[in-house]
């Protein structure tokens, strides 16, 4: 094989391909200087032209505070705002329909119901998860919204009312209000009596067998607690008084926790959302919470179902 020429004025031509070489050689292997096809060059120029146009039209050049604006005035934030606007406009009729519908008849319109649940899920994540948790499972002092135990009631209308007006909300007349006395702290009961009533509560919730203390506690309960919690301790939803006989404890069901509750009282507060969220959002939240598995039927549901069935027949 011929040595590649070192003379830079005369390119060495490869015999087989007729192409000039670069003049390098590695153990007899030379590098061809194959020319680029013209169309490739044109493509390259076209890309440069496109890049220049892009830099002029779109934000591209970094400046002190932001990038250059670009002739088109495009920005990703602007895109987002426009898209959110479009989405809101798209959702507006659905939200309107939810706001104007009877909350108890929503179940008869599966599409609207679905939209309400999803809208509620989104609103829940923004407004409610701070206390009730992202899975609505609550925490000590914050009710679990998945279960079937409700302090004030678990039908759609009641949940909506709780959401709108809150619980023990100060300076709001329509709020749900009830106060458990601090029996120990305010010396309404003597310390042994408090111990006795705690024992009694643990007995009626089947956490410990009846003994002398619990039997004494029964009398204390009947005199001081039954007025709100009921003679059987089954609670009273009108007053938000919890059922003391079931397996669910908002503040804990062990002796210490119940003792604290009786001694110091508990006064959980839920904000009223009526002045912060739109009625449609509150309605969607109510539907969402109701759908979590513990939702209860309205006291007057039977006729509603009949009505929605009629409605369903009319609909195409």
């Amino acid at each position: 094989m011929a040595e590649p020429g070192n003379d830079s004025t005369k390119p060495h031509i490869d015999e087989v391909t007729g192409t000039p070489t670069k003049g390098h050689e590695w153990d007899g292997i030379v590098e061809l200087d194959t020319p680029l096809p013209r169309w490739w060059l044109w493509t390259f120029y076209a890309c440069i032209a496109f890049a220049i146009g892009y830099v002029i039209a779109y934000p591209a050049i970094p400046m002190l505070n932001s990038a250059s604006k670009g002739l088109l005035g495009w920005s990703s934030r602007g895109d987002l705002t426009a898209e959110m606007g479009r989405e809101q406009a798209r959702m507006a009729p659905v939200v309107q329909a939810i706001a104007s519908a009877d909350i108890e008849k929503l179940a008869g319109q599966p599409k609207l119901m679905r939209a309400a649940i999803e809208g509620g899920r989104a609103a829940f994540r923004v407004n409610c998860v701070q206390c009730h948790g992202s899975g609505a499972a609550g925490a000590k002092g914050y009710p679990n919204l998945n279960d079937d135990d409700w302090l004030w009631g678990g039908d759609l209308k009641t949940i909506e009312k709780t959401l709108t007006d809150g619980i023990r909300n100060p300076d709001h007349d329509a709020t749900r209000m009830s106060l458990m006395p601090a029996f120990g702290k305010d010396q309404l009961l003597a310390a042994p009596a408090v111990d006795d009533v705690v024992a009694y509560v643990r007995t009626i919730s089947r956490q410990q067998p009846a003994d002398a203390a619990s039997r004494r506690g029964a009398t204390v309960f009947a005199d001081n607690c039954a007025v709100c919690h009921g003679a059987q301790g089954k609670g009273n939803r009108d007053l938000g008084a919890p059922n003391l006989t079931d397996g669910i404890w908002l503040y804990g069901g062990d002796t210490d926790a119940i003792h604290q509750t009786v001694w110091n009282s508990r006064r959980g507060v839920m904000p009223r959302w009526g002045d912060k969220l739109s009625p449609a959002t509150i309605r969607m939240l109510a539907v969402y919470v109701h759908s979590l598995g513990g939702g209860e039927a309205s006291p007057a549901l039977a006729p509603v179902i009949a009505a929605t069935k009629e409605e369903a027949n009319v609909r195409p």
Partner: protein
Amino acid sequence: MSGPDLLTVGRYAKRQPVYPKAIDGTFRRLKWAIMAVTLAIYWVTPWLRWDRGPYAPDQAVLIDLAHRRFYMFAIEIWPQEFYYVAGLLIMAGIGLFLVTSAVGRAWCGYACPQTVWTDLYQHVERFIDGDRNAQMRLNKAPWGMAKLAKRMVKWSIWLAIAFATGGAWIFYFADAPTLSHDFWTGQAAYVAYATVAVLTATTFVLGGFMREQVCIYMCPWPRIQSAMLDEKSLVVTYRHWRGEPRGSLKAAATTPTGFGDCIDCNQCVAVCPTGVDIRQGPQIGCITCGLCIDACDRVMAKTGKPRGLIDYLTEDDATAEKAGGQPKSVLRSLLHVRTVVYFTLWCAIGAAMLFALGARDRIGIDVQQDRNPLYVQLSDGAVRNAFTVKLRNMQSRPRRMEVALSGLPGAKMWSEDLTRAAGSTSVSFTVPADSVLRARLFVASTAPAAHRQDFSFTVRALDKEGGTAHESVHFEGPQP
């Protein structure tokens, strides 16, 4: 004429224009036939109808990306069955290997869309501009009314073909008659117009102007193929031992023994659609379309020499022939270890897929447990878990299905639109045709034995055809 010098010396190489001459012969006719068949398949397929009942589209071949379904005659593929498509692609790959190891670059020469459309465009070009010499003259001629008119007509026809090509493509992705109507009345989706525009432009440019440069510079397949060809693959071969030294008829007449059969008429170069000179041996520009064989055979017939100075020949045969032996029969050349292995593999995959297709279930269940919260304590001491269940009805008719619990004694289950009081061990649904029904199911167990228990959901079709599917899940409870 420096045929093979596609790349001229310089920093950037200008394209050497190619003016392939019209030719008739065995391989040209084969190319005609394959072109007719492939183009017909391309343009006709979306318009074929196939009755699938009232709940599914009646287009025989439809890639319904919007609804994530792929229809091909009696076969319907869901996204989770994409392995059939993967299998089909593997078969296509192995098929290509098989063709390559048997008959070389036959795909390039006959069936590749770039070849077929370039061929079509070249016929249009000949129809408008005339054959090779007229085309060369016209190209050199100064721009005038006549040249402009010819160019306009040619480009218009090219553009029309390109538009028809790009236009047909979109019909594979939506109901063809509906889309056609929407397309012409301006109601089709933006993406349909964009697709047609892009494909029209690429067809026009690639078929009209880029042509053989696509094969030489852009396409990876020729590079891969040159690694796949071996001494047993059919390639277009110039029998240089018979043709050389080449010389014109006149020269040969003066010295009868000094020359071979090649009369150096350059017909093989003139007809070549990629402009190579096959007499320089196998090369990347040769798509093995066989048109030079047709051209040379005609010349050989005229000069009274046997045909096949240029022919499809394996390297093994060429070596044998040079040494004075006989080439193997065509069948013997086609049958060797690689082709047999590829063919067996190809058939095995095809058979396995057909079997799987025949035995596949058209009912399915997927269960996802609520993770937040994992379980809910109920007021009577029971524990509730929630599950999102997806029921797949892959038949094109609505079906009644029943989901049942098994392996969780004493548990009750209810769907989200019912209440616990209505709970039982099974729930029924009507799953719409060809779709997935998504339902939330609550399961409550009064006395969970352990904090985690295995059980399963079983779905059963309640019609005559039947079918079941199940999925195992856990029931979670509080830590003891």
